[in-house]
């Protein structure tokens, strides 16, 4: 059933069918026909540079069928700006569309263009929270959130609290951990070296590790903070020993603790202990990376590593 061909609003447009050389084999499927018709009208309006409001309906229709078609988004943005269209209305529509098409990323590029032009982040965090309730690790949404924080200086506008809520919900959400790092250390490198911030962040990571010792994210975070603050790894020696007691190799509760301890031992010139830890990793707690642990062991044997 042709939709545009029989619509008086489109009677002045001559659709431009796909030109791929061969006969058009699309006729078999109705939905395909609908898509193909809409695309032929899009080609026509783009060829004549038609910026009228009906193009918004047309692009919306195509986006609903195929949100990954980047050309459609680009043309839609052009028309919106040309018409001086109410961008709040555009955001309302985008909200529904983004929730329907979780994996799509053109939507986020478009949203960024619109919000940037609007010059206001009102309502954005609430919408982002809605997206995260469906997929709390969506990379596009996290990237967009970082852009938002930078663009509108939202560093102290509830971001840390929001991210803490998400880590509470899933302590293994590496994206949330990354956002925390971005908020605390990504802002201004000198202002955040203060002792209390460093201590607070170390404690935060430690608490998360206690909840789930075999979880990469907080261990990475802990190491990151130590490196950032130029503290030796032995600063958390006792803490790590709680998850990988040196005297009972059967009671290791975290391969990451063992890995960190190997570095502590190396730092403190306890070569024998370091080798023991690396052997345990290679044979028992992380055998799939045996070659990596072997490599670290070899480094210990080299005179430069001991110095």
């Amino acid at each position, binding site marked *: 059933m042709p939709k545009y061909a029989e619509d008086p609003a489109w009677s002045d447009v001559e659709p431009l069918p796909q*030109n791929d050389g061969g006969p058009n*084999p699309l006729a078999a499927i109705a939905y395909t026909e609908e898509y193909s018709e809409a695309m032929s009208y899009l080609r026509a309006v783009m060829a004549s540079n038609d910026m009228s409001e009906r193009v918004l309906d047309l692009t919306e229709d195509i986006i609903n069928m195929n949100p*990954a078609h980047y050309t459609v988004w680009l043309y839609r*943005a052009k028309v919106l700006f040309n018409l001086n269209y109410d961008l709040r209305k555009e955001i309302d529509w985008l909200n529904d569309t983004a929730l329907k098409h979780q994996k799509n990323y053109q939507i986020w590029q478009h949203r960024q263009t619109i919000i940037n032009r609007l010059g206001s982040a009102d309502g954005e965090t609430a919408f982002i929270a809605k997206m995260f309730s469906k997929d709390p690790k969506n990379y596009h949404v996290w990237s967009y959130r970082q852009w938002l924080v930078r663009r509108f200086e939202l560093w102290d506008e509830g971001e840390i609290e929001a991210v803490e809520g998400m880590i509470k919900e899933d302590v293994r959400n590496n994206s949330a951990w990354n956002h925390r*790092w971005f908020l605390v250390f990504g802002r201004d490198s000198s202002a955040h070296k203060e002792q209390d911030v460093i201590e607070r962040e170390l404690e935060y990571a430690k608490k998360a590790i206690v909840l789930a010792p075999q979880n*990469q*994210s907080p261990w990475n975070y802990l190491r990151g903070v130590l490196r950032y603050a130029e503290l030796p790894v032995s600063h958390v020696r006792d803490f790590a020993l709680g998850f990988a007691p040196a005297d009972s190799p059967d009671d290791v509760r975290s391969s990451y603790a063992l890995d960190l301890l190997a570095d502590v031992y190396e730092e403190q010139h306890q070569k024998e202990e370091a080798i023991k830890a690396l052997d345990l990793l290679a044979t028992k707690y992380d055998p*799939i990376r045996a070659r990596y642990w072997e490599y670290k062991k070899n480094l210990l044997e080299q005179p430069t590593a001991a110095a």
Partner: protein
Amino acid sequence: MSLVSGPGRGGITEGQLPSELRLYVDKHVTYIQSLDKRKDELEYWLTEHLRLSGLYWGLTALHLLGQPDALPRSEVLDFVISCLQDDGGFAAAPQHDSHMLYTVSGVQILAMLDALDEFDERVSGGREKVARFIANLQHPKTGTFAGDIWGETDTRFLYGALNALSLLGMTNLVDVDKAVEHVQACANSDGGYGTSPGAESHAGQVFTCVGALAIAGRLDLVDRDKLGGWLSERQLSNGGLNGRPEKLEDVCYSWWVVSSLAMIDRLHWISGSKLQEFILKCQDPDHGGISDRPGDMVDVFHTVFGIAGLSLTKYPGLVEVDPI
């Protein structure tokens, strides 16, 4: 090359011993050849905005499988040239807009077919036109590259730009040092790289950043042990690789993780045989093609990255792939 998925699913009947797993070369060749004959399926048209990249993936897979002539060269060339736009960029398909990603695919295909000279003959000054399109997308202050005139930036575009320009022999048109600086700014404290400064480490982005540094001759800037540690942590006990901590394994990371490890000489830090086992279990042994993980629909994207992962880990009978 179409990106329609299926018809089959990856997965081999349970109970097969690892030693019985093998690569179904002929099935995969037929599968790739058949992809462009499925114009009666809606998905064929819905994936049109990716077609040029799809073609590159299909061709690469065929090259690795040792059958580079399985798609007719002249038709491929005609199609690539029909995607060239007036601004010097390539679009994913005729009548679409130019974009960095498809421009890179276009150049990669021309280079793979050894057709860059032919391209210049058919399109006067073609090479330089394309190189200028790419160079114009570099941001002069930050060194980043945009994907199109709208200005979205991503390390994928930066890597693509350097890759295409080096194939064209025209990296001199851009500020490579500034680009390198930007890549450095995308490095994270865990050793990995994200899509922009501050963004979460992601194996795909690691590949683009390390690849860009390799092309720029600046791999000396990489902390190889730290990055290698992060990359090798991507391997899960089933042999498959994930793209970020606590995410599911996926065949496409066989390319991004493994080629990055190869570029920094740490390939041996993961278990190649376990990875091969995982990839082989994602094949559809009847209709060909590889899926992201066992039980899912196959597609050309995961097919090429699965085969590339096998090639990088020296699976017998495959052409060796260049990690960059």
